[in-house]
């Protein structure tokens, strides 16, 4: 237990220490900067792996809890801890970051020092969001993400980078400021319940279901809007294609693999845990939005001519499954959502790296500029195929597990009580096959007609280091999903049981 706490603290703070260390390296020693940054992120990965044996997956309680008072008057503290859900998210973060850094190894040539510092800051902030057990601390970390991410898009991005960066910033800020009001209001609502003004999430969790339902409704919406923007859920997704397309490869990987997960995680941690009644009441409406997002994202992805934009819209579609799973409010659905979050992080990360590989060689993201690439880059073609099938959801690879569970959850959900959601959402899987296979056909098959594509180099060692670990995890989760899912099982079961208990007792009361 003691070791777990230490490991958790180090997982959180090692990137920050790393950022400080990199600041002291001279601007011109680019190689040293890169190596030190990578070492820090690898160390963080190693330390976070130590959490696994320490974690007791048979319990749904928060583990490795640290509680240090910060602002006593407002009952705000440095409170962190892990349950199954955020354990997986933390591990995903520590796993993706070194890969994202490698993706920027060659691609980032200017202002290397700033880039590496910002990446480590970003890792610190994201880990902080996942582990925070205090609403105020959560908000601080949540906003802390904005600055490094906006800078990464704006400095190292493509031609439209400034527009994309500002759009990302303002979009996210609108949501999060409403969340800030909700956090304060929640504190006062807790005070009305007799525990005093507080930001302690665990305390809030115990009293929040007693808050009057009209207040709960508005609190739920304020939190949800902020998270929906981050997820992103249709119709507040429009920042995402721009941000993804304009960001450098490393930035896209972080955005797609990690940043989008923050929103989905928030939905589980705040909306489901704090406002069970409202979650039940709004499950249907939100599932409709999720399904619309799944189908809309897929259809729009199909007509893209820019491959990065295509993958960006596929994220809208895939994250729709996550929201659908969450608001099915069943054990299968929520567990499916959690595993789908991990899966999406890994496969979409891999797809963005694949696109980065092509972009680095040809400096174009137009699908029409490619064709028959398989003949010159056969090894690349293999890894790209696996990532693509993972994203489509082919059985045996990771994507299948998550999509299957979320669909099953919404199919069987007693709260939705309607098959239509699952049936409509399933079409998203078919569309995914359409746009991804078609993309693959246009890029990789056919005649290699374009002279510029005749002498493309196959994967370098650096690129293997990025893609192979991701591929291994894809196959591993696809083959043995339980090894990953078992960590989150009890936490998810506990959340769902709470919702069922509250709904059940309420219906029982209403019975004459």
């Amino acid at each position, binding site marked *: 237990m003691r070791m777990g706490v230490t490991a958790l603290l180090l997982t959180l703070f090692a990137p920050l220490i790393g950022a400080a260390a990199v600041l002291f390296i001279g601007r011109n020693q680019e190689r040293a900067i890169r190596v030190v940054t990578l070492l820090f992120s690898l160390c963080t990965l190693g330390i976070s792996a130590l959490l696994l044996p320490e974690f007791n997956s048979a319990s749904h309680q928060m583990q490795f809890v640290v509680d240090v008072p910060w602002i006593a008057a407002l009952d705000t503290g440095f409170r962190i801890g892990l349950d199954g859900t955020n354990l997986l998210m933390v591990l995903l973060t520590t796993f993706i970051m070194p890969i994202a850094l490698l993706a920027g190894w060659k691609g980032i040539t200017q202002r290397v020092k700033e880039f590496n510092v910002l990446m480590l800051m970003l890792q610190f902030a994201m880990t902080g969001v996942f582990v925070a057990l205090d609403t105020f601390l959560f908000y601080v970390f949540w906003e*802390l993400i904005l600055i490094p991410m906006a800078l990464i898009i704006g400095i190292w991005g493509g031609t439209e980078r400034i527009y994309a960066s500002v759009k990302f910033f303002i979009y996210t800020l609108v949501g999060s400021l409403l969340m800030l009001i909700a956090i304060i*209001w929640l504190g006062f609502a807790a005070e009305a319940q007799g525990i005093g003004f507080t930001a302690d999430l665990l305390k809030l969790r115990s009293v929040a279901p007693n808050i009057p339902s009209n207040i709960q409704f508005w609190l739920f919406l304020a939190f949800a809007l902020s998270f929906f923007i981050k997820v992103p859920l249709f119709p507040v997704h429009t920042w995402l294609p721009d941000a993804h397309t304009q960001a450098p490869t490393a930035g896209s990987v972080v955005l797609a693999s990690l940043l989008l997960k923050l929103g989905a995680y928030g939905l589980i941690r705040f909306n489901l845990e704090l406002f069970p009644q409202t979650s039940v009441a709004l499950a249907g409406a939100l599932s409709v939005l999720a399904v619309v997002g799944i189908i809309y994202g897929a259809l729009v992805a199909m007509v893209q001519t820019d491959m990065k934009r295509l993958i960006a819209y596929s994220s809208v579609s895939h994250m729709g499954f996550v929201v659908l799973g969450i608001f099915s409010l069943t054990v299968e659905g929520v567990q499916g959502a959690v595993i789908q979050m991990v899966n999406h992080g890994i496969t979409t990360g891999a797809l963005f790296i694949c696109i980065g590989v092509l972009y680095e060689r040809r400096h174009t993201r137009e699908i029409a500029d490619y064709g028959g690439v398989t003949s010159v880059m056969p090894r690349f073609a293999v890894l790209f195929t696996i990532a693509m099938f993972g994203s489509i959801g082919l059985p045996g690879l990771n994507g299948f597990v998550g999509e299957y569970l979320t669909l099953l959850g919404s199919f069987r959900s007693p709260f939705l009580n309607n098959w239509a959601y699952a049936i409509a959402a399933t079409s998203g899987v078919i569309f995914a096959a359409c746009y991804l296979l078609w993309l693959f056909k246009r890029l990789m098959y056919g005649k290699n007609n374009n002279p510029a594509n005749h002498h493309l180099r196959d994967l370098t060692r650096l690129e293997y280091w990025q893609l192979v670990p991701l591929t291994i995890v894809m196959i591993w989760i696809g083959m043995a999903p339980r090894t990953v899912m078992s960590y989150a099982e009890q936490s998810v079961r506990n959340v769902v049981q709470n919702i069922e208990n509250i709904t059940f007792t309420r219906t029982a009361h209403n019975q004459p």
Partner: protein
Amino acid sequence: MNTEILGSLPLVVIWLALGAIGIVIQAFIKRDSSVVYGYYMATLAVTGILAATTLWSRGTAFNNMITLGGAAAFFDILFCIAGILAMLASKPYMQRMKAGFDEFYTIMVGSIAGMMLMAHAQNMLVMFIGLELMSVSFYVLAGFMRTSNRSVEASLKYFLLGAFASGFLVYGIALIYGATGSLQYGDIFTVVLGGTSQYPLLLAIGSVLLIVGLSFKIAAFPFHQWVPDVYEGAPTIVTSFMSTAGKAAAFSAILPAFTALMPMVKTAALTPQLQLTLAIVSAVTMLVGNITAVVQKSVKRMLAFSSVAHAGYLLMGVVAGTADGHDAIMFYLTAYTFMQLGAFVVVSMLETNDETSLTFDAYAGLSKRNPPLAAAMAIFMFSLAGIPPLAGFFGKYLLFIAAIDAGFTWLTIVAVASSVISVWFYLGLVVKMYFQDAEHSAVQPPSGTSAVTVAVCTTATVVLGILPTLITNLLASW
């Protein structure tokens, strides 16, 4: 008796240092020597330290006209720190602008003496005297670059409108005196609380006129029109000082005055109306300030409008009227002083005689030309926009809490909406500095001691954001 003497020491010291010794020194020494500069620096430092020793003492002096210790001492320290920081930055700037005369420091310390009197005042007239001393000093400082047309114009505009506002203020004070029979805050409070005034209408009109007069000083809508021209025309260092310490001083006068006029009890018939009036002023002020700032081309003018918006945020605490609200204002003013002063000093460091040096375009590529300065400016901008974990965010958080607690959730939502608008131009400057390259490489003047100011402001902005308890615990301990 003992606390009375000790507690009034900071006030006495700064007045003596200014009136009795400072002016004499100035008469007998060579012009443009650093003696005067050093002398006033020491004065401010000593005054600040003396004020710090009185933080926990309580009392009144001069026939209850002056309150001692507590919030007043807190404001004293804030004024002295702002003064020291502004003076550090002013030396290289004023010399570069060929206006480096010693009188500058005398007048500046004079304005601080006025501010401290405002913060200590327990009596409407004492407050007014302090306010006038501060204002007259500012009129002179605004026109200090007397060869520059804009500076003189700023001074004259400020003087004419300021005199007008003072008129409202005095008239309001007179009516309040007529209604309550006293100028002492304590007596006014008793009358308002008991509802025993024989002329409630006079009291109401007097209170509104007081709001008008003080709104002018804090630059709240609709009495903010002087701000952009005056802030833009005045020497940048003067602007930095006026917009921070000047605003803090106005609030230091507003807090006790409205504690007396607007008691948070049911029997005080006027309280809901005054609260609503102030809430509307607050909401419109932040919206107007931020929306107008969006279209500005000059960074100095943008910061001027943003200072209007911040007056709106600060008023939220007055609207709430609770102890929490007042604590929030004091925290926010501290944070605001560091970030806004820092931002203006950065502007002053990049300013040349060329007008274009103030535009947003002049900041393009600053992150490459001068990374530390760009980073500092970015921190000020993010803090002004209220992004955690910086000081500005925590101040807003406290103000929001106070407003929601007092039942003004709608005002908080307006504040949030206008914060989002404000991101547009704060972020716009960061975008210029970091994402765009300079079209031509501007020559940057040497920074001198201005760099110290920027370093201190940056550190304070970050530290107060991460450890807000440094201030909040102090405020809570009273």
